[in-house]
């Protein structure tokens, strides 16, 4: 099932939750909607599910107008952040719900429902919990049941709204892997919303980065990390050093220091230079574009993180390999291995 969204606009009062969004989701892909809270990602997901309606724009499934249908007709599996399990029903009945409420003409008989539910519980590896109530389950188990329940109706599309947002870090990591392998197994077109960049980069085939109701970039996980299209994406995904620079007369300046970086093709004026922390390579003084004094150094697992006061007046944090000798008080040269410059 392909999903196509065209020029979607949704306002809550004067706040534009979606401000002209265009998106094409390919058949069978696992897409992440990534953005800070208030970026419109959940609103977009809910409109695709039929739980919200846009002010204007189009949504189509396989070329068919989806906005003409309600949530009930769209045949979309939706997984909520807080599970939304029916707490007066057993796990088994929760999963069976979608099968039991089908119109009589297409409803399966009891035996078929039982075997289908069993199959789904096996798929989420929780068949031994069939007779429990949701309140007796852990968060991770509840979310897997919610997923099994959504899959019961053989949805054309699976939508997950911050599916791991309410879980603790360890469970979240396990479920991420599990979701990816599950998707590999069932191959239903899936979109999941997250504000956790690591989650998006690890799980999805493609990542859509959103901010303020607009799509900033669509690309593979490698793409959005290595080639951020906008300043927002660079700042949001991975940790970045941001330096205010001036471009003019074919040169780049930080404060009054001219940087030894190529200024070809850059528009003159105030800009921002983005560098990843680990892309700032440490060398002897005078060897790089920047020079600075090390303020202090701390070890962070595989790297050491140094705070460096640049001669231009800015203070930055860089990550260097542990074997590089760095001490507070050293003067060092810094050379950005890769960097991006965005106007503004």
């Amino acid at each position: 099932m392909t999903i196509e969204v065209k020029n979607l606009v949704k306002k809550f009062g004067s706040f534009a939750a979606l401000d002209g969004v265009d998106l094409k989701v390919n058949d069978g892909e696992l897409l992440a909607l990534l953005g800070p809270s208030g970026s419109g990602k959940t609103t977009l997901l809910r409109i695709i599910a039929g739980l919200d309606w846009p002010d204007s724009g189009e949504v189509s499934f396989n070329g068919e107008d989806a906005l003409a249908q309600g949530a009930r007709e769209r045949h979309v599996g939706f997984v909520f952040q807080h599970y939304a399990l029916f707490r007066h029903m057993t796990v088994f009945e929760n999963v069976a719900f979608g099968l039991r409420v089908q119109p009589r003409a297409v409803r399966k008989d009891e035996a078929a429902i039982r075997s289908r539910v069993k199959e789904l519980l096996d798929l989420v590896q929780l068949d031994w919990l069939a007779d429990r109530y949701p309140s007796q389950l852990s968060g991770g188990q509840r979310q897997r049941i919610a997923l099994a329940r959504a899959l019961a109706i053989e949805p054309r599309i699976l939508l997950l709204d911050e599916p791991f947002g309410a879980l603790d870090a360890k469970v979240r990591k396990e479920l991420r892997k599990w979701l990816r392998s599950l998707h590999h197994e069932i191959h239903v077109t899936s979109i999941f919303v997250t504000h956790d960049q690591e989650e998006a980069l690890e799980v999805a085939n493609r990542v859509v980065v959103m901010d303020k109701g607009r799509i900033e970039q669509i690309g593979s996980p490698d793409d959005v990390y290595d080639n951020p299209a906008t300043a927002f994406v660079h700042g949001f995904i991975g940790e970045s050093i941001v330096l205010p620079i001036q471009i003019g007369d074919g040169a780049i300046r930080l404060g009054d220091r001219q940087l030894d970086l190529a200024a070809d093709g850059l528009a003159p004026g105030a800009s921002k230079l983005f560098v990843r922390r680990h892309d700032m390579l440490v060398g002897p003084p005078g060897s790089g574009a920047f020079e600075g004094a090390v303020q202090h150094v701390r070890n962070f697992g595989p790297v050491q993180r140094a705070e460096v006061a640049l001669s231009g007046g800015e203070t930055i944090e860089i990550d260097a390999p542990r074997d590089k000798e760095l001490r507070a008080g050293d003067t060092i040269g810094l050379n950005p291995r890769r960097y991006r410059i965005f106007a503004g």
Partner: protein
Amino acid sequence: MGLTLSWLSVIILIPLAGLFLRSLELSPEQFWNILSSRRTLNALRVSFGLAFAAACVNLVMGSIIVWALVRYRFPGRRIFDAIVDVPFALPTAVAGVALTALFAEKGWLGAPLAALGLKVAFTPVGIFVAMIFIGIPFVVRTVQPVLQDLDPEIEEAAGSLGASRLQTIVRVILPSLAPALLTGLALAFARAVGEYGSVIFIAGNLPNVSEIAPLLIVIRLSEFRYADATAIAVVMLVVSFVIIFAVNRLQRWAQSRIPAR
């Protein structure tokens, strides 16, 4: 623990025991004669029958009111929310006088109803109306917090799984609210059975027709027939207790299917 038990004993159990002891002064035969008299039976029938009917009406209407108060935002919602408590706070005699004036043959509501051939004041219908009036807050206030707690997401979940609105209400919402609904029903019923003040003004108090059991007790007391009064009281007590107990069991059963979160 000790304090709880002593307090419950002093406030509730000892007076009830006194009631029972008092009724023991009667021989079983006397007891039976008092109870099987036509007037007593009719009074009990009026009290319990109408109280149950009123509680059922309150269950349905109360649920609708709760739904509107919790799920919709409309101008004046807070005022309506406060109005629900009026029957709680109003002295029952005031309520009785107000209802009587309203439903009397020349009252605002009584006149048009009388034109339709329905006489409310001074008939059993009047008792029914008064019992509905005083019972409504019990249903609303017990169900309200539970509904507030019920995540609207479960309705969206049901909808996206293909359930119609009706299926969502019957299979998801009502079962989740069942324990609270039963509690509200029981409380409204218990209150209506015991209601005295507001009912006697509007009832007309015709023996065998619109005379409620609590009024009969008062009448017997004023005639210094204390044993008669206690006998009726004991029956009311036992029947109320059985009903409350049954509802309690039902509620427990409903709750056991929703273990505490």
